[in-house]
């Protein structure tokens, strides 16, 4: 039954806790069975039959007590052996009791055999939900058949069996939920740890690179300013500085990230392939496996196009979005019929489709028709966006399960109440008890928040205790499990309370119920075996239910915390990727604008007036890399360059911080800035304003302030 997946830390802990709970439940049952002498009226059974049950309990108890130290496989094996023993006891009950031979010995079935809660949990540990529900189903059938065949249903039988079934179903449901939650937690933990480690390593490299880049920049700026100022007597120093700067620029070609590699792939092709990149700042960062797959597939798509499409235009489009990336390789060449691709065209069959399909989160689509060109669209979606979905689905499963058990509770306990009312000397008593229990359950169900308020919780507990107290007082002696059915029934409402975040109150309620039972035993006539059974069942269902509910809540909370960490790591990785882009852009700027000029200075050439102005303009352009941010959009870089060449001191400041600006706004703003830059004569300061200011941006043009967007309520402030 064991699956291939290794058991994670949280899951192992959960299994151990579950089996420990089983051990505890069996211990309670055993104490109950031993404390009380077997009453008369039991069905006669051969000695080996109860021995099977005893062995099952002994194995469970041993495994449960040793659970904190057992490895996963032994845990499962122990639970499996216990379940196998119990199931064989259950199955052999039918022949052993003589039901098949037509001479059944009349009597009740052993109480131990009806204590199914612990065994159901053991089945859950050994083989998961399927085994647990199968065992429970088998038990229900055998017990119902045996009861009917052996001595018919008594009130105690109905109450005991229905509540044993409810106990087992409740524990199995919560336990299965806890197992699922712990498996999710393990998966989330390992994913998060990998992401955090990757991010930290990447970050170290990034900081080192940024530091190195800053020094290069510093050298380049110093050389540019020296060349621009051309202070008398500085010629040799300027030349030395230019030599040093160009040397550093040569030593540090812009490194390629995966987008860079893709760009190199496109630009290095035999024939021209255009490259277009759209990248959002918090763009997703695919891992190494995904990058490898995307690069392989895109490379193959380019190669296919070069080989088969004939003369045509080709383009690689890359979109890096928040939740994933898209790479499209498109041409307007010959095209082909995808349905008719021969098997020997391995390029498409294995490289593109195959590689991508093996990559988690990745998809591929090939659109082509003869004469209509070819488009290969590769896409990858980040997992983090969907990781909350299974958790939500699991919670829905849990809620549906709880509703089913709630319905089962209402139906079975109503039947018990009706049977009790028929037999009771005063029929309304059991009906009132049922009404009290259902009222408490309804109060709980109507609580709006996931965690019930203290007051509502206290009301529920008080109501249940009142029902139990009044019921025990009103029930005529001798009190049996059947006539005191409402005490364990109240326990189920307490479990529901524990699941809604009030485990402490539930345990307080349990204490109250047990105290009431003890008091009743002390002052009134209660059959001892029934008193112990009542106490054991109530203790099992509330104690274990509360324990597992707390476990479940904790697991869910840890999973959420892991998800938060993962989101944080992803956000940092995205930020770092954007920083890398920034560094790349700067390296390109230095290469494009500064290097040609500095190489001439380094060779000892004298710069003319125009070229010195150009050096000053390039110095400004490189400084913009640090502070201009989003203002470097549209025609602004060119207009700033032109203004600087005219001798204008241009300062561009992006002071908006983290908050984004919509692209259309930015485009309009760029147009506006450009107009003002073109008009500047001496000094220009363009500033994207911090969030919360009345305007998006402002420009100071030779002492005059202009605001964007221009509002009628704000007149522009005249400087001089």
């Amino acid at each position, binding site marked *: 039954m064991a699956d291939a997946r290794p058991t994670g830390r949280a899951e192992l802990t959960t299994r151990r806790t579950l089996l420990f709970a089983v051990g505890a439940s069996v211990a309670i049952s055993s104490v109950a069975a031993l404390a009380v002498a077997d009453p008369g009226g039991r069905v006669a059974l051969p000695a080996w039959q109860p021995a099977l049950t005893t062995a099952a309990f002994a194995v469970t108890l041993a495994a449960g007590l040793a659970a904190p130290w057992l490895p996963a496989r032994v845990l499962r094996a122990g639970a499996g052996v216990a379940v196998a023993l119990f199931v064989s006891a259950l199955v052999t009950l039918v022949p052993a009791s003589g039901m098949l031979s037509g001479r059944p010995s009349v009597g009740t079935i052993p109480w131990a055999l009806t204590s199914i809660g612990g065994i159901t949990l053991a089945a859950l540990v050994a083989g998961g939900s399927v085994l647990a529900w199968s065992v429970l189903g088998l038990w229900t059938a055998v017990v119902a058949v045996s009861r009917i065949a052996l001595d018919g249903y008594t009130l105690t039988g109905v109450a005991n069996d229905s509540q044993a079934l409810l106990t087992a179903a409740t524990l199995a449901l919560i336990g299965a939920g806890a197992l699922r939650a712990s498996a999710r937690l393990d998966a989330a933990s390992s994913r998060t740890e990998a992401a955090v480690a990757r991010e930290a390593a990447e970050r170290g490299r990034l900081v080192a690179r940024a530091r190195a880049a800053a020094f290069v920049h510093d050298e380049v700026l110093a050389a540019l300013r*020296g060349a621009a100022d051309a202070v008398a007597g500085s010629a040799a120093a300027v030349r030395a500085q230019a030599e040093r700067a160009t040397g550093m620029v040569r030593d540090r070609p812009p490194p390629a990230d995966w987008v860079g590699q893709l760009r190199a792939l496109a630009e290095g092709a035999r024939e021209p392939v255009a490259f277009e990149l759209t990248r959002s700042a918090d763009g997703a960062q695919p891992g190494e496996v995904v990058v490898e797959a995307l690069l392989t597939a895109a490379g193959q798509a380019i190669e296919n196009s070069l080989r088969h499409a004939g003369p045509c235009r080709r383009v690689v489009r890359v979109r890096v979005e928040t939740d994933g990336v898209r790479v499209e390789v498109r041409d307007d060449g010959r095209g082909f019929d995808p349905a008719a691709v021969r098997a020997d065209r391995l390029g498409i069959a294995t490289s593109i489709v195959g590689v991508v399909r093996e990559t988690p989160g990745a998809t591929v689509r090939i659109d082509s028709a003869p004469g209509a060109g070819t488009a290969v669209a590769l896409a990858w979606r980040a997992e983090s966006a969907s990781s909350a979905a299974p958790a939500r689905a699991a919670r829905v499963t849990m809620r549906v399960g709880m509703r089913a058990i709630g319905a089962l509770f209402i139906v079975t306990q109503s039947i018990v109440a009706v049977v009790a009312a028929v037999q009771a000397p005063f029929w309304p008593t059991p009906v009132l008890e049922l009404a009290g229990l259902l009222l408490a359950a309804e109060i709980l169900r109507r609580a709006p928040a996931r965690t019930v308020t203290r007051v509502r919780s206290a009301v529920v507990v008080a109501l249940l205790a009142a029902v139990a107290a009044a019921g025990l007082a009103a029930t005529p002696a001798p009190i049996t499990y059947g006539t005191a059915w409402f005490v364990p029934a109240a326990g189920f409402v307490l479990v529901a309370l524990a699941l809604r975040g009030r485990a402490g109150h539930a345990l307080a309620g349990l204490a109250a119920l047990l105290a009431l039972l003890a008091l009743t035993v002390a002052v009134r006539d209660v059959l001892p075996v029934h008193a112990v059974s009542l106490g054991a069942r109530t203790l099992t269902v509330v104690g274990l239910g509360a324990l597992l509910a707390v476990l479940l809540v904790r697991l869910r909370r840890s999973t959420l915390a892991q998800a938060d960490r993962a989101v944080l790591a992803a956000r940092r990785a995205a930020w770092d990727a954007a920083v890398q882009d920034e560094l790349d852009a700067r390296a390109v700027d230095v290469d494009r604008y500064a290097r040609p000029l500095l190489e001439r200075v380094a060779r000892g050439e004298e710069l003319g007036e125009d070229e010195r102005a150009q050096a000053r303009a390039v110095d400004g352009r490189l400084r913009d890399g*640090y502070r201009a941010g989003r203002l470097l959009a549209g025609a602004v870089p060119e207009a700033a360059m032109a203004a600087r060449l005219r001798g204008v001191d241009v300062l561009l400041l992006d*002071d908006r911080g983290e908050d984004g600006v919509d692209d259309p706004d930015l485009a309009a703003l760029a147009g506006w800035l450009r107009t003002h830059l073109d008009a500047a004569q001496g000094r220009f300061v363009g500033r994207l304003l911090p969030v919360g200011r009345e305007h998006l941006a402002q420009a100071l043009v030779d002492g005059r302030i202009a605001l964007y967007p221009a509002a009628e309520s704000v007149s522009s402030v005249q400087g001089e």
Partner: protein
Amino acid sequence: MARVAIVDDHELVGLAVRGLIEPAADLEFARHERTVAEMVGPMRDADLVLLDLSLRDDSSPHENVAALRTWGAHVLVLTSAENPFLIREASRTDALGIARKSLPGAVLLDAIASAAAGEHVPTTEWASALDTDPTLQSAPLTAREREVLSLYASGMGAREVATALFVSENTVNDHLRRIRAVYHQIGRPAATKVDLYRRGIEDGFVPVPRRG
């Protein structure tokens, strides 16, 4: 006659500053050194030290300014191209101001002369770095002071701000001095987790990504 020295990694920058200062009537060029340790000799021979914001010896603006102040000199910080975090860091020091090396010569010379006289030298970059510092949001600044800071950050000079707000230039300078004092007092904020991460870029080397 005020004596001006400079601490900068580049010989060229020293030459340029010297070329700027020597013709000035009431300023005298003292020395050019590459580190603050080399500058602070037993005898103080400079009244004002121009300090490069990011020296390559791993020293921080904070330590450097403190050492120079102890030595007894005023400090004016010079920047080439740094992110606002590093400028904020320098703004928390005892330096009189922060000026960019690429300022037009006459403007830079004015700034040096003011600093040599021990006056506060507010600049556009300084104001912009402070105006956008989230920690200043909760600082005890008046609405008028915030207005002055914002206008100053937009590139206006004290005279222009004074005209725009219909107050005297002295009043504007008073406001700027108080903003500087308040900024000194609030110091570096306790960092939240995200801030702690972002602080990574505050060493002044890792750039702030461009958006959109």
